[in-house]
């Protein structure tokens, strides 16, 4: 292995630690990304980008024994930047069958359809804070930490997103 390759890939011990840590978090990160970016393809890409960023910064991680919050923050950052940067159409943007109750495929709640439509119009950070707060259970302060912003900013994103959701869901 050349010196350059060693610098990039790191020692084998670090690699084993990284693989173990990432393997235990990958599925959770996928679902986290999925709820922000909505598309499973994009969520997979986010997980891969998270792995890449994490591996490169792994030697400088202060507490390798507790990588969960750190990986979560990277994943949220990639999820937010991904939607913002590409703004591309996502699979499932037209199809809404997945919104139906799997035990009653004929049921398709109007409020879920409304939510889906409005959710896609929110800004990436608004989508992130909505998913993190309402589904993953993070407080506004925790959302701020994950998103790399001040708590007041996270609360502001949440309040604006909530206002838009309420307004748009009413107008139907």
């Amino acid at each position, binding site marked *: *292995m050349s010196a*350059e*390759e060693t610098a*990039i*890939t790191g020692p084998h011990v670090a*690699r084993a630690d*990284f*693989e173990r840590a*990432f393997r235990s978090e*990958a*599925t959770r990160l*996928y*679902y986290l990304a*999925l*709820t922000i970016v909505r598309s*499973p393809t*994009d969520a*997979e*890409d986010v997980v*891969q*980008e998270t*792995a*890449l*960023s*994490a*591996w*490169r*910064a792994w030697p*400088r991680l202060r507490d390798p024994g507790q990588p969960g919050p750190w990986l979560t*923050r*990277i994943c949220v*950052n*990639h999820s*937010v*930047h*991904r939607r913002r*940067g590409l703004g591309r159409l996502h699979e499932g943007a037209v199809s809404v069958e*997945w*919104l139906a*109750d799997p035990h009653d495929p004929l049921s398709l*709640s*109007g*409020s*879920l359809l409304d*939510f889906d439509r409005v*959710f896609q119009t929110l*800004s990436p*950070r608004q989508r992130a804070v*909505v*998913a993190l707060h*309402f*589904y993953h259970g993070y407080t506004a302060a925790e959302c701020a930490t994950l998103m*790399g*912003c001040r708590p007041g*900013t996270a609360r502001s994103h949440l309040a604006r997103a*909530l206002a838009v*959701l*309420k307004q748009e*869901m*009413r107008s139907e």
Partner: protein
Amino acid sequence: MNEVPSDEQVAETARQYFGRLVESRPAPPQLAETAIAGAVAPRRVVFLKPGKPRPSWVLSSLVAVAAALIIAVPVGLSLVLRSGGAAPAATSGAQGGSVVPNGTLVLSGAITATVTAGIQQTGLGCRVIDSTPAPPATTPIDKLLTGEVDFDHGAALVVLTFSGAATTSTLPLPGELKGPGPPGTVGISANGREWSAGQSSPTSSGTLTLSVSEGGTIHGSVDASLAPLRGSSTPLHIAGNWNC
């Protein structure tokens, strides 16, 4: 729904919505292994992996892609960013990050702060892209220096994105290339706000200087006024340098 739903109703709808989403889109079985394999592979040829015509982590840096396209079109190059491509051009992406990214930026205008390169959280890293022209063209090899560097700013993150030739570029560049080499662009992203200087930001001004050492380390310095792109209406002035 004709009445304004309560916060709790919206929250409940959100929980149902995300629950259905997660339930209907299970994680792929090989997710972790694929991601790990892509991350720890020596050099960054991972973004050239076959079967993914859209190399996502390259595409996520819009500035870098735009710059690459701007190089390719005027000089008749065909940048091949996938392995085994049949196009008669050659492109190699060399990892530039042989050093831990370091540097300092002084921000003023929309943000006033002095930030130092810290733990790289979201950056794509730095790399040198060599592109040779398709035969029978005789244009000299172009070298594109591109990358992202994360700077700490308290709890927030300031992300610098740059792209350009190993030279000093005056920003903004004209609408078309007047000489060999890629144009220079530099952007800042912080707290959801973005600023940019370069070809797509005609109101920007300043200089961007990039060079690369024998060991592959990219040295950059900038003194420019960046035009607001998103989330701000105030220009951002940045001055400083970095290595990555």
